């Protein structure tokens, strides 16, 4: 048993009786309840399962290397996307983003993806499909997406912040293109020592992001339609020149 295994597993014992005042306005509390190895096509990881006191959604961390008690640990926040992550949907780039972060963390040799079980950033699969239905009809979706509820919610960061504390990460380097994310996590007391820009390698699946605005020949015809931002990060693709628009 290596050092890392023992320290991650110790968290399960440590957290068995964990109680705290909770994080954020919703007083969210999580506990590490299980740790196991997770060999993936992107490398060998360990998966850490979390219980939480607000709902039945089991958030997980996919961990590489010895990170417990670590400093400057690379961390990526990912919101669950059933259609993209599991079904390989090309309506969004969630799977590309998840794969890129796992590959990057494997390459760095340590880090964690916090996989938050908040489908479509909290709106649920049902309303995400409704939003897709609006896109299919070619309707203007700007306000509709708001109604369907895509959110960048304080509670998501509270969960993530607590997970970071539960993993005893003393400081992190956040893999993000979204400065708001840094600020939100910092407000919950997370020490952020750096930012790793999250850049997707260009490939046939994300080339519609490279297409210039107004290009009507977008991938699968989706490039020209209003799109939902399903992860709270703006996407950066290698070779993309309009990243800062």
């Amino acid at each position: 048993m290596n050092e890392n295994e023992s320290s991650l597993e110790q968290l399960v014992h440590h957290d068995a009786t964990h109680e705290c005042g909770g994080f954020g306005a919703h007083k969210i509390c999580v506990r590490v309840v299980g740790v196991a190895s997770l060999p993936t096509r992107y490398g060998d990881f360990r998966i850490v399962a979390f219980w939480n006191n607000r709902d039945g959604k089991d958030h997980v961390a996919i961990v590489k290397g010895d990170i417990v008690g670590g400093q400057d640990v690379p961390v990526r926040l990912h919101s669950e996307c059933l259609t993209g992550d599991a079904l390989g949907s090309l309506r969004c780039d969630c799977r590309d983003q998840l794969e890129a972060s796992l590959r990057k963390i494997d390459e760095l040799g340590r880090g964690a993806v916090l996989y938050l079980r908040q489908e479509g950033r909290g709106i649920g699969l049902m309303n995400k499909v409704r939003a897709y239905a609006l896109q299919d009809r070619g309707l203007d979706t700007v306000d509709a997406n708001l109604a369907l509820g895509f959110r960048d919610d304080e509670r998501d960061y509270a969960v993530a912040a607590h997970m970071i504390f539960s993993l005893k990460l003393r400081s992190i380097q956040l893999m993000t293109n979204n400065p708001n994310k840094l600020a939100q996590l910092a407000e919950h007391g997370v020490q952020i020592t750096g930012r790793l820009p999250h850049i997707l390698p260009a490939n046939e699946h994300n080339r519609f992001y490279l297409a210039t605005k107004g290009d009507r020949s977008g991938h699968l015809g989706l490039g020209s339609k209003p799109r939902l931002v399903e992860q709270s990060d703006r996407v950066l693709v290698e070779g993309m020149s309009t990243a800062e628009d």
Partner: protein
Amino acid sequence: MDHGVAFLHGSDASFLAAIDALDAPKLEGWPFRIEGRGVPCQPDTYTARDRRVALTEGISSFAKHLADGLDIRTGVTVARIDGERVFLDDGASLAAPHVVLTLPVDPMAELLPVLPELDTARTILGWLGTVPCLALLAAYDLHAAEPRFDVLYPDDGPLQVIVHDSSKRERPRHRVLVLQAGVRASRDWLATEPQAWQALMLAEAGRLLGSWAASPSWVAAHRWRYARFPSGAGLGAPLVIRLAGGRSVSLAGEAFDAHGGVQGAFLSGERLARRLLAPTH
């Protein structure tokens, strides 16, 4: 006495704070005695995280409290809205550059101005619906048997719930039960004569509780064509549609919140207010 919502429940801090700010007699934690294997309107009503509060003088005191200080006109029917003015059925009209509709979904769709900017909203409303509820308030002598539940969700049959309303009071003058028919029965009976469905509901109460329950000393019937939004299928947030000339039409209510119910209606209104009052760029 409450024909409809029997108690408030929720977990959101601002919703609970609004309940706490209400100066009216409250019964914290009511209902205490919950029986039956039927399903409440909102399946998560009795989760540990939700706080329950009954208002012994009626739930309407909560709405009145929230409306305190607002200029409210009752007894007026809105006939039509065109995005600029609100037309009343007495022929008068009001200038209304910003309109917020918080009606049940079906009448909301009927009142929505016919404007191309509102096509998306109309499409979304077409995905939502409202369910009816027939309710019967039945009062009995205090000699009548005293049910040992505060709320009963029958295992089967046409009634969704029987609320033992008088158990909210320390010294009730009558034994009061509120019978609410389930969605299917409510829909089936909606077009029939009230006497017919009242008799069916009382007979069912008699079958469930004993023959005494079938013969109350008096009853009051209530037919809600648009009683509530089916829980759990709501949108994530209220909808604001900006029109030309800085005008807007907004939609809110329990259908515009992921969890629905009274708390959902409250939260959607609060969110909408924040968006409308936020300075625009």
